[in-house]
C-alpha cells in the first residue's frame, strides 16, 4: 500500500477519535439543554439578554474584556488554601463572593459567544450584577478605575463617555465625580502651578469662601501651604460648567454588567 495513504488514514483515524470525543459528543450531550423551571408558572431561568444589555454584551466582546475577567465560578471543592489557623480549606471563588454557587452549563445556554474567559488579571464577573448592583459605581469605575480603586491597573474606558457643557441643569445621567476625574476624562487631572495661579487670581476669594463654609479653620492663600490645601480641596469638587455622561455604548455596557447574575438562581445540578 502507498505510504501516503497509510499516513492519511492514520491521521484521519487518530484525529477523528478526538473530534468525536471532544467535539461531537459534548455537542450532543449539552446541545439540548433547556431552561430550568421548578414549578409551572415560574419564570424559567436563564433568560436571554435583551435590548440594552444585549448591546452591552457586544461592547464587552469587542473590547476584549474577557481577556482579564472570567465569567465562571468554580465549586466549593476547587482551589485550596490554609487559613490563619493553619486549617486547610477549599472553594476560594465562592468565599471571594464571586457567586452564591458554582456555575454550570445551563447558566450559559443563551450566551453567544460564551465568554468564560481564562485569565483573572481582574476579578470574576459571572455574578457582578448581584455583587455590585450600583449603576453609578460602574460608570465612575469604567470612566477611570483609579477613581474607585487607587491600585487598579484596568484601562480607563473614557471613550464610552462624553464630556459636555452643561446646558440648563446637570443631567440625571451625569457622573458624580470630582473635577480631577472629569476635566480630562480617563486621566487624573491636576492644574500646573501656573494654571493654578491663574485660577486663584480669577476666583480665589470665592473658592476660599467655599472652602471655609465647610471647614472650621480659615485658609491663607498667600502662603504656599495654603495654596496647596485649597487646590486639594478644589480638585475634589465637581466641575461647575461641564459634566461627563455615558454614551450609548457606556450605558449598554453597564446594563450588561448589571444583567450578569449567573451564580445566584438555585439550580438542582449546582448543589455542591
Amino acid at each position, binding site marked *: 500500500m502507498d505510504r501516503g495513504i497509510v499516513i492519511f488514514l492514520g491521521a484521519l483515524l487518530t484525529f477523528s477519535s478526538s473530534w468525536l470525543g471532544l467535539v461531537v459528543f459534548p455537542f450532543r450531550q449539552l446541545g439540548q439543554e433547556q431552561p430550568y423551571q421548578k414549578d409551572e408558572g415560574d419564570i424559567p431561568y436563564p433568560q436571554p439578554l435583551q435590548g440594552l444589555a444585549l448591546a452591552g454584551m457586544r461592547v464587552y466582546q*469587542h473590547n476584549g474584556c474577557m481577556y482579564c475577567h472570567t465569567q465562571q465560578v468554580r465549586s466549593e471543592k476547587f482551589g485550596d488554601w490554609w487559613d490563619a489557623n493553619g486549617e486547610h480549606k477549599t472553594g476560594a471563588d465562592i468565599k471571594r463572593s464571586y457567586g452564591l454557587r458554582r456555575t454550570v452549563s445551563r447558566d450559559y445556554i443563551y450566551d453567544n459567544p460564551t465568554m468564560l474567559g481564562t485569565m483573572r488579571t481582574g476579578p470574576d464577573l459571572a455574578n457582578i450584577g448581584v455583587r455590585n448592583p450600583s449603576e453609578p459605581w460602574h460608570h465612575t469605575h469604567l470612566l477611570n478605575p483609579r477613581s474607585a480603586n487607587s491600585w487598579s491597573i484596568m484601562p*480607563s474606558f473614557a471613550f464610552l463617555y462624553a464630556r459636555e457643557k452643561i446646558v440648563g441643569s446637570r443631567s440625571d445621567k451625569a457622573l458624580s465625580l470630582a473635577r480631577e476625574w472629569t476635566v480630562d476624562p480617563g486621566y487624573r487631572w491636576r492644574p500646573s502651578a501656573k494654571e493654578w495661579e491663574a485660577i486663584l487670581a480669577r476666583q480665589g476669594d470665592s473658592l476660599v469662601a467655599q472652602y471655609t463654609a465647610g471647614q472650621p479653620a480659615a485658609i491663607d492663600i498667600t502662603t504656599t501651604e495654603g495654596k496647596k490645601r485649597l487646590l486639594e480641596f478644589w480638585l475634589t469638587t465637581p466641575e461647575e460648567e461641564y459634566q461627563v455622561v455615558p454614551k450609548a455604548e457606556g450605558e449598554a455596557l453597564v446594563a450588561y454588567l448589571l444583567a450578569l447574575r449567573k451564580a445566584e438562581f438555585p439550580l438542582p445540578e449546582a448543589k455542591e
Partner: protein
Amino acid sequence: MAVTVAEMSQHDRAKSAAERAAIDASCRGPVLVFASSAVFWLLAGSMLALLASVKLHVPYLFTGSAELTFGRVRMAHLQAVGIGWASLASVAACLWLMCRLSRAELIYPKMLYLAGALWNIGVSLAVVGIILGDGQSVEWLDAPPYAPPFFVAALGIVSAWTVAVFRRRREPHLYVTQWYLLGAVFWFPWIYLVAQFMIFWSPAVGVVQPIVNWWFGHNVLGLWFTPVAVGTAYYLIPKIIGRPVHSYYLSIIGFWSLALFYSWAGMHHLIGGPIPAWLATASTVGSMMMFIPVIAVAINHHMTLLGHFHRLRYSPALRFTVFGAISYTLVSFQGSLMALKSVSETVHFTHYIVAHAHLGAYAFVTMIMFGLFYYMIPRLTGREWASSVLIRIHFWCAAVGITTYFVALSIGGWWQGRMMNNPDVPFANIVAYLLPHWLTRTLAGLMLTIGHVAFAISFVMNLAGWGKQRSGGPTFFVEPEKKT
C-alpha cells in the same frame, strides 16, 4: 534512517547538487513571499505585544484611545503572531521541506502567490478589524467574520500544493518530516473549519463554544505548529551535522503517539469550569500520555546530536533549532504536569499560563522557525547572511529574552494563583504583587523585539542582495577549525 549511503561519486554529487538547485529555484518566489510576510507580521506582532505588556503596569498609557485599549491590542497581537508570523513561517516550511524531501519541484507557483496574497489580506483584515472594534473575544479566533474566508481559501491552496508535491515525489523513501508535514496540512484546515463553523457560522449552544474553542486553541499548537516545528527539527539537525537520525523506530512512535494523544488534550483549559468533568479528565489522560511522543523525540534528537555539540558554537541555524528542540521537551513536560488537577487548581486563570504559552509558541516553535530561516533563505536567494553580528544579536536577545520572560511570569503567575485561592488575600495585593513581574516581562519583550529587528534587517539585506555569494560556504558565528 537506517540507510547506509555509499560514498557518492563526483558525478553523482554534482547531479544531486544540480537537482537541489533546481528545486530551490522553483520554490524561490512562493516561499520567499510567505517568509517575508511572516517576518513583517513578526515585527507588527512584537509591537502590539510590547504595547499590551506596558499597559499592564502603566495603565494610563494611551488610555484615552479605544483602538489601543488592552483587550483589543491583546487580540490583535495573537492574530498577528499566530495566524501571521508563526503560520506563515510554517507554510514556508511545509512547502520548501516537502519539495526538498520529495525531490520534486514546486509547480504552478502563481496559485501560491495568490494564497500568500489572500493570507496577508486575511491577517490585515483581522488585525485592523480588531483594532477598530470588531474583535470576537474567542481566544485564538478573534478575527472579525470577514477575515476567515481569506484564511480558509489560502489554507486550502497551501494544503493542496503540499500534498501535490508529495504525490509527485521522485524520492521513494519517506522521511519522518514528510509525515509530520502531511499531518499538519491535513489537521489544521480541519480544526479551523470545525471551529469557525461551530462558533461563528452556526453557533453551538452555551459551553459547547468554549469546548470547541479550546479543542481548537490547543490543537492549533499541537497539530499545526508542533508537527511543522518538530518535522523541521528532524530535517535540520541531521542535515547540518551530516549524520542520519538516530532511530527510525523512535520517530515512528513519536509521530503516531503525537497524532493520537495531542489531539485529546485541550479541555484542561476549562478545568473546574461549567463543563462535564469527564471532558477535563479525558484531556488530562491525553496530556499525560504526551510523555511518550515527547520522550521519543527528545531521545532521537539528543542521540543524533551526540558528539556534535561543538557545532552549536558556529552554526546559527543549528543553535536556534536545538534551542527550540530542547524547549519542546521542556514545554511538553510542563504541559503534561499542568493538566493535573492539583497543579491546575493553582495556575489556572493566572499569568503562569501566559508564560507556558510563550515557552511553546516562542522558545519552541518560533526558535525552530528562526533556525529554518537561517538555513533556508540563503539557499533560496543564493546569498549568505551579510552579518554574523546581527545573527548573534538576534540569538542572544531571543534566548535571554524568552528565558527572562518565562521565569518572571512563571514565578509571578504561580504566586498569583496561590493568592487568588486564598480569599483572605485582597485583590489589590495580588495586583501589587504582579507589577514587578509585568515590568520584567516588558523588559524581556523589549529584548525579543530588538532581536526581531536585527533578524528583519538581516532578512531584508539578504533579499536586497547584500552578503557574499553562497558558493563560499555559510555565515558562521565563528569560523570552525579547519580539519588538517
